[in-house]
């Protein structure tokens, strides 16, 4: 590599913070105990586990006993949705979600449909927001769960959880949110936002991969989804990933500093303002209620993977919602759900920042991107 890469794909995953690595280090070969063991090694592991649980609970205004560690966002979402569905089928078989969820939510719901559950997929408006009235109208007496993503992974829209949660609470329906992208980047308070279940993960906030958590409000009726030795109060069996959990908690501690959010917000705004100067460009998602690190654009007459390809040659890592980049060769369903045409969805580019992103890097992107778009438009028959 001739020069340092500019990593603007933090919505996919982030670099592990050095301090997190440091915190984890001794848990591999020194403090390597199993938290279920009764000797010193086990007790150390158990203490570290419970300390981490406290940190994560505090970060979302929950009690320690309401945090269950998992292997990440996908497992937490599967656990929340399937666990609630099977524990509450006596009450009803109806679940409400949206058209802009992560695939692990949508595919969990699709699987439940095969098991006899009914699922409603709410529309969103042009900026990606769920209408509270739509939610209220969709709730029936058989409804047992509402699952709505907090910060959208593609377009960065931050849903009004408080309002949506209130409707669920009034109708006595469990409310789950997937907060993988929003965690530590915007307010997340389980009581204020009327949340019963929250999916959290570590690798989007400079923690290690393979670890996450599910917040489950005390008293919630949920079936365990992974059976075994009875860890996590018998709700999630499997030897706890102590090093990962310690790293996760350290990442949360660091990320809770609000200065990071301000910095990312400033740079993202600068990036958006600069890119919108390119003719034939639109911002996808909302300008206001947007994740502090997410920018998503559509460029007319050019294809997103090709833009990403040129950026890659310039050392800039990005992602796209174009059909070419998808295994099923269909443009992003999130971009389609906010009403984009095939051309707009295929011409999309997502740039996601982190607290390590510098102003110099953003300036460099703003310097090279207009030329790339111009060149590709010259190739285009449209």
């Amino acid at each position, binding site marked *: 590599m001739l020069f340092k890469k500019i990593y603007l794909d933090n919505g996919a995953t982030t670099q592990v913070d050095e301090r997190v690595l440091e915190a984890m280090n001794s848990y591999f070969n020194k403090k390597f105990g199993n938290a279920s063991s009764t000797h010193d090694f086990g007790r150390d592991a158990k203490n570290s586990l419970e300390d981490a649980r406290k940190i994560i609970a505090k970060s979302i205004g929950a009690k320690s006993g309401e945090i269950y560690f998992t292997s990440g966002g996908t497992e937490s979402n599967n656990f929340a949705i399937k666990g609630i569905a099977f524990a509450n089928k006596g009450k009803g078989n109806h679940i409400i979600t949206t058209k802009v969820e992560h695939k692990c939510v949508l595919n969990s719901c699709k699987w439940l449909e095969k098991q006899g559950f009914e699922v409603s997929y709410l529309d969103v408006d042009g900026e990606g927001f769920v209408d509270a009235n739509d939610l209220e109208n969709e709730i029936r007496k058989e409804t047992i769960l509402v699952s709505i993503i907090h910060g959208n992974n593609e377009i960065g829209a931050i849903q009004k959880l408080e309002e949506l949660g209130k409707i669920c609470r009034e109708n006595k329906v469990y409310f789950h949110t997937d907060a993988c992208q929003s965690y530590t980047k915007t307010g997340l308070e389980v009581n204020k936002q009327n949340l019963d279940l929250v999916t959290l993960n570590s690798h989007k906030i400079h923690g290690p991969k393979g670890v996450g958590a599910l917040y489950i409000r005390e008293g919630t009726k949920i079936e365990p989804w992974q059976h075994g030795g009875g860890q996590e109060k018998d709700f999630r069996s499997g030897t706890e990933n102590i090093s990962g959990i310690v790293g996760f908690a350290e990442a949360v501690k660091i990320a809770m500093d609000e200065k990071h959010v301000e910095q990312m917000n400033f740079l993202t705004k600068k990036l958006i303002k600069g890119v919108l100067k390119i003719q034939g460009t639109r911002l996808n998602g909302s300008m206001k209620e947007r994740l502090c690190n997410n920018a998503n654009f559509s460029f007319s*007459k*050019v*294809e997103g*993977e*090709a833009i990403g*390809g*040129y950026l890659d*040659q310039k050392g800039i890592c990005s992602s796209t919602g*174009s*059909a*070419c*980049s998808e*295994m099923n*060769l*269909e*443009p992003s369903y999130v971009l389609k759900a906010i009403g984009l*045409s*095939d*051309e707009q969805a*295929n011409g999309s580019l997502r740039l996601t920042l982190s607290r390590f992103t510098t102003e110099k890097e953003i300036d460099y992107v703003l310097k090279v991107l207009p030329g790339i778009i111009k060149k590709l438009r*010259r*190739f*285009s*028959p*449209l």
Partner: protein
Amino acid sequence: MYSKKVIERFENPKFVGEIKNPDAVGEVGNMKCGDVMKIYLKIEKGKIKNIKFKTYGCIAAISASDAMCELAKGKTLKQAEKITHEEIIEKMGGDVPQIKIHCSVLGTRALRKTIENYKNEKNK
């Protein structure tokens, strides 16, 4: 994901552009799949004298368009019609992701369609 050769061609395609007063033009693909390929031909004594392309599409689509043009240039129409997508892939360096094979197929379709347009026009 892509080989160096594919990227090189994508970065500096030799055949991108238009031909003024072309003898034939042809377009294939659609916006849903995200690839549109347009071919311009100049034909002399039954041979492809000049060929250019304009492509809306991914790295593989642009690279395959360019490779196809290179293969077609100088060939008789009969020979050009017989160009296969395997030959295009070979011209691209042989290493194309499985999911992008259809881009090379699109290349052969674009060329055949343009030649067909030329013949139809001539027989009018």
